[in-house]
């Protein structure tokens, strides 16, 4: 069992390593380099060269890759080019803001999705299921920015309950964030619920038809006990996987929702970094977000393994 965990962990590290390679050389391929981005279009060749010497940009790419990797491991994320401050500082506050947003959305989304999914599964093809499933399909298939814009229209403009755009700085304390955060949370929750609830519904339907539940019915167990003690736990197991996948989606999708609301999070920072061609910032954000995604998947994998002993037999990789 420990070997299995250790193996998964090692695999995750290898994947992160490969990603760092892809990210570094992907950003390398962007037109221009750090020097042109720093000094702008009208820099003279001499100043460009001087800057390249100073930043060590003339070294061959592999050497720079190894240096970057070494710095990363030490915790040094480098300095941002356009804002001329350390990347870590820039990311810090925005990361906190995005985490607040994401965790709040996830905390709402998972219980709501489970509740609605169970209801939909139990009332299959009747009105509650039809309405719930329809809304879920809409939330799941349409682009995030479409969902966000429609929600903005109804909640911010027609009902005027919440502000449509965030107007605060990134280092504002969390208390100031609150009124601005509600609509982004609602949007993210809506999209995540749509994804998760479909699978909960399917699992619920499958479990209710299983022999395990049929046996409980034959024994005369009350309907409520069947749902809560028998059906629900079995239906929950595969849900861990989809929750992890959805949180993984969140890592990318939150950027779009942040862009719609101009929320000062890491998503909007990433967008700005890319249009500014701020290479160290792009690389740092990319590796952080990817690592988070891999970390979440690793946790979900291990959780599933722990909760389902049948999967523990090694598959001879």
């Amino acid at each position, binding site marked *: 069992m420990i070997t299995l965990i250790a193996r998964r962990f090692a695999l995750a590290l290898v*994947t992160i390593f490969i990603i760092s390679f*892809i990210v570094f050389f992907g950003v390398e391929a*962007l037109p221009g380099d750090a020097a042109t981005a720093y000094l702008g279009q009208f820099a003279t060749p001499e100043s460009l060269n001087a800057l390249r010497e100073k930043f060590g940009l003339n070294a061959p790419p592999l050497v720079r890759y190894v240096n970057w990797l070494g710095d990363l491991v030490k915790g040094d994320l480098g300095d941002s080019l356009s804002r001329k401050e350390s990347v870590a500082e820039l990311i810090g506050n925005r990361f906190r803001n995005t985490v607040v947003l994401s965790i709040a959305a996830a905390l709402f989304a998972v219980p709501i999705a489970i509740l609605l999914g169970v209801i939909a599964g139990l009332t299959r093809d009747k009105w509650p299921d039809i309405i719930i499933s329809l809304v879920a399909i809409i939330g799941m298939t349409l682009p995030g920015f479409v969902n966000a*814009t429609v929600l903005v229209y109804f909640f911010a403009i027609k009902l005027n309950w919440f502000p449509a755009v965030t107007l605060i700085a990134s280092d504002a304390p969390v208390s100031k964030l609150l009124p601005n955060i509600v609509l982004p949370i609602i949007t993210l929750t809506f999209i995540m619920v749509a994804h998760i609830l479909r699978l909960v519904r399917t699992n619920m339907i499958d479990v209710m038809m299983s022999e395990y539940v049929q046996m409980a019915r034959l024994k005369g167990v009350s309907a409520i006990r069947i749902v809560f003690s028998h059906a629900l736990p079995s239906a929950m197991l595969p849900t861990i996987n989809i929750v992890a996948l959805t949180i993984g989606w969140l890592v990318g999708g939150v950027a779009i929702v942040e862009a719609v609301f101009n929320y000062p999070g890491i998503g909007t920072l990433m967008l700005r970094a890319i249009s500014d061609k701020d290479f160290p910032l792009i690389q740092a954000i*990319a590796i952080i977000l*990817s690592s988070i995604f*891999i970390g979440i998947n690793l946790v979900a994998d291990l959780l599933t393994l722990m909760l389902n002993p049948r999967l523990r037999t090694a598959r001879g990789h």
Partner: protein
Amino acid sequence: MPVATTSTEQPELFKRRSPIAETWENLRRSWSGMLGITLIVIHLIIALTSPFLIPQDPLEMNSKISNQAPSYEHLLGTDKLGRDVFSRSMVGGRVTIVVTILATMIAVSWGGLAGILFGFLGGRADEVFMRIVDAFLSIPWLLILLLIVSIMGTEMWVQILTFGFTYGVSTIRIARAATLDHVTSDFILAARARGEHKKTIVLKELLPIVLDVILVDGAMNWSWMLLGFTSLSFLGFGVAPPTPDWGSMIAKSRETLAIQPWTVFGPVIMLSTLIIGINLFADAFAKALGLDRSQGAPV
């Protein structure tokens, strides 16, 4: 039914239908599938014919009539530069649809073949390749798309190729998984024993079996590509103005959402109906082919 039948009549039971006809029959029975196909076909027709049929010039600006409510002349009103929203919404899908359809074909082709190939070959090459594929799929999709578009630019042909490449990676996994189901089968063993070239085995034996899974994935891929392309367009990394495009239309019209919501809802409705149509079709198609699909989150 007469007991004695002539030898030239085939009893109902043994009439053979081609798998294509059978799939189509199954598809016809699903109302959601037919609705999906209808929506897709309508959009394709609009994309092809709209420049000739729209009432107004989508590019003509007239600041005197900006932000007007819907009227007989301007069915969805005008935007902030006085352009007809209805006409722009009708033609706004052309670039999007062309790019995504062509890119989907590329994605399905290369992803499908690569998946089958590596599933068939197995061994070290397969392991290494799949590690790289997994790593690629672990990078947040938006980041990958943005990076690639920043590097390669927003020329239409370039976008077709880059989207095709990027979205093909997720097809690799699906094709490989489907291939692995069959690679140990007896008929593959027999083919190998006959001494068939690997290429022949891949193309003539494995591909037909795995094709239905790949096609369903292709339909979903088109849907996700629409998400990705319009999202990039929304963020400003897509089609250059003044060409009307659903994503950038939605982005630019958000400021007038309060006074003229149709500038936003025109393209939103167009885009939504297409995506929903594709999803309905993909679901019904999978059922018609007899495939059991579990929905994953988009890549």
